[in-house]
């Protein structure tokens, strides 16, 4: 009898998905609340050093990179895949941009070429994951090594300096009173929010992550959607890498180490499910800001980088734990 055979599986699937959906709504408030507490805590502990215009701008500038790449990863993770290579992408695209600029190529062409090359890398990953059906975790882990390796090999490990002022201002400049990276991140975030929420493509992204088999029978080209999300991530990493290179005045092959962890934590803290099908760009914004403030606040309090890593690890653990608790409370509240 079919009922007997499938009843357990169906129930557990249903509960899990329900938990995720209801959890998302509560979680977003939870994370926002935690963010406020974090800001109050750092402001208090740093005796005002935390809430200054210049520090807010510093945080915003730092967070921009995580947002730009996080947007790409949000697409990827909603389709239930992952891209671990984004940190290495940052280094490779910086080196690439610097190498191109060395030949006195105009800044916009350098940026464009960098983004196209990185999009191509994303395309390769996408094709491997979608067509060859390889696991994205391992594939991008391999790509992480390969792209970092290329960056190191090409430069011999030393940074390539950039002399193009316009390119440098991508990372250091201002548009009005607002740092250029912040403006770029805002534009990327808003556009991608609309793409995710208002377009066919966005709907298909949720569909593929929610139920791949159903997406296929519904007439969605699942492979194409998967490839596109990796291309987007590659392209946005190229953009973020160029901004970072501008800020560092150089293409640095060791840049962006551990960056993938910050970005993925941000996206997850922002409510995008590791199992796919659920997530939002606003969530990613909140998550990235939370992670960014954490790093900055600890620096201001004089906590060294090494200890920061330890602290961050614990805080991510606590965040996920709290997240699950709120979800369970949410479920219980719903049932009663």
């Amino acid at each position: 009898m079919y009922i007997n055979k499938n009843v357990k599986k169906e129930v557990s699937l249903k509960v899990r998905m329900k938990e995720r959906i209801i959890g998302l709504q509560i979680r977003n408030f939870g994370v926002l609340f935690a963010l406020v507490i974090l800001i109050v805590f750092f402001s208090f502990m740093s005796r005002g050093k935390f809430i200054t215009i210049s520090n807010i701008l510093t945080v915003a500038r730092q967070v921009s990179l995580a947002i730009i790449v996080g947007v790409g990863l949000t697409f990827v993770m909603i389709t239930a895949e992952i891209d671990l290579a984004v940190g290495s992408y940052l280094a490779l695209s910086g080196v690439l941009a610097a190498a191109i600029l060395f030949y006195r190529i105009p800044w916009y062409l350098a940026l464009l070429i960098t983004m196209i090359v990185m999009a191509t890398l994303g395309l390769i990953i996408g094709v491997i994951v979608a067509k060859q059906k390889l696991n994205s975790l391992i594939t991008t882990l391999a790509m992480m090594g390969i792209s970092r390796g290329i960056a190191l090999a090409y430069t011999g490990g030393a940074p390539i300096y950039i002399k193009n002022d316009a390119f440098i201002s991508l990372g250091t400049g201002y548009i009005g009173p607002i740092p250029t990276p912040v403006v770029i991140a805002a534009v990327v975030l808003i556009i991608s929010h609309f793409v995710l929420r208002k377009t066919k493509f966005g709907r298909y992204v949720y569909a593929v992550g929610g139920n791949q088999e159903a997406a296929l029978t519904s007439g969605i080209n699942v492979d194409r959607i998967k490839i596109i999300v990796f291309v987007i991530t590659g392209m946005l990493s190229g953009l973020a890498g160029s901004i970072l290179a501008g800020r560092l005045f150089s293409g640095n092959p060791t840049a962006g180490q551990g960056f993938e962890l910050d970005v993925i934590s941000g996206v997850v803290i922002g409510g995008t499910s590791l199992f796919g099908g659920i997530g939002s760009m606003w969530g990613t914004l909140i998550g990235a800001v939370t992670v960014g403030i954490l790093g900055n606040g600890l620096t201001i309090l004089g906590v060294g980088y090494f200890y920061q890593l330890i602290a961050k690890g614990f805080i991510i653990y606590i965040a996920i734990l709290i997240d699950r608790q709120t979800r369970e409370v949410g479920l219980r509240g719903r049932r009663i």
Partner: protein
Amino acid sequence: MNSEAIFVMKDISKSFPGVKALDKVTFGVNRGEIHCLVGENGAGKSTLIKILSGVYNQDSGQILYKGKEISIKNPSHAQELGISTIYQEFNLCPNLTVADNIFLGNEFSKTFFNYIDENQLNRECKKHLDLLEADIDPRVLVSSLSIALQQMVEITKALSRESEIIIMDEPTSSLTLQETDKLFETIHKLKEQGRSVIYISHRLEEVFEIADRVTVLKDGKLVETKPLRGLSYIDIVRMMVGREIENKYTRTTTRTSKKVGKILLEIKFFTKKGVFENINFSLHAGEILGFSGLVGAGRTDLMRAIFGLETIDEGKIIINGKELKQFKFPKEAIKVGIGMTSEDRKRDSLFLNFKIRENVTISYLDYLSKYSFIMGGIEKDFAIKFIKQLDIKPQNSEAQTITMSGGNQQKVAIAKWLATSPEILIMDEPTRGIDVGAKSEIYKLMRLLAKQGKGIIFISSELPEILTLSDRIIVMNKGKIVGEFMNEEATEEKIMELAV
């Protein structure tokens, strides 16, 4: 009965939400007996077996085991008592050796650190395998064995736990003829050793080959338990189908006259080796074409192949008189006007992370968007139209699909396909797992669609609904079409005879 009963299940009842799976069923097995349990899909065989093996608890009724009343708490308790079940899907670890599997959780490791003496393990294992004259090396990985040998390992595992009752659920479903013979030999050996075997099978010829006694279930009720001797094939089919049922369902066929609509779809020479072979049929406008047969007869695979979800070795699809290449993706099938609701809606049809609206429109977004932006208002109106038409509850296009009942989820899955306004709708077990009320609504809807001139292919394993709804019935057995009836001439007996 003269011989000693090893267990008796008395007046067992069990309900699931919306279904009474077992209704006061009494079932007993004697020591050293091969007892076959037969019945249609949904007759309650598996439920009964799962109660005996501790997967479910009965709602009422008692179990006497060796004369004492017991309650079976869980599957491992059942094993301790000496009741082993061999399911269709084996519970073996493919990455471990035969010996490891047989003694899994039962290793005799009395030394430090739970060190397992492999030589001893292999020797013990060999002993058990020899009892069944099974030629299997205990040291090889289970994954390297054929299905039949894996089954042998399962049986050996049951023996190593000194099981007195061995339950086999459709054990021959994936065996070749020779392998089946070998299995029967093994079963006879078990019997000689004084063990009891409960054997469940759809294939009546097997029942005749091995059974001592037969118990027939129908609609969760006991029909009869009888010694096999003196029973004929037809007797058993009659017991399974039930004589009186024939007049209970009013047949309201959709076709008002004998005149049929134009041919919408023709399938020619469809073959996928080992799955289905040389399938030819046509579907007319305004017709409900029923596909009957047992689970595993190849109906679902055939439909999936037509819909572009599986490849075929050979075959032609002709739609509205035009011959088309076999579809590589469902997208191509949808384009020419085919829709398909799947037998497992949670796996193949629905997005549980979506709202009702998003589920309804997912296959039709091309027409609800401009420059690939979805036109929100139009999409919502479109979804609401179908929610109203199918009376989906809650009547709120923004409600989460996950919170809905099974019947309403099924309606959403159907709405998704109606949204694409297909000419041809394939419905695979559309009433599976939904309650009686929702079922009749879906029947009504199918009739309405047929009246509107759509062609419907209707797969169902429940004979009454096939007979009630279909204008024409095709029976499949082991991947082949073995019969075709007009509604008027079809009876449950005729269909069952061809299907088993």
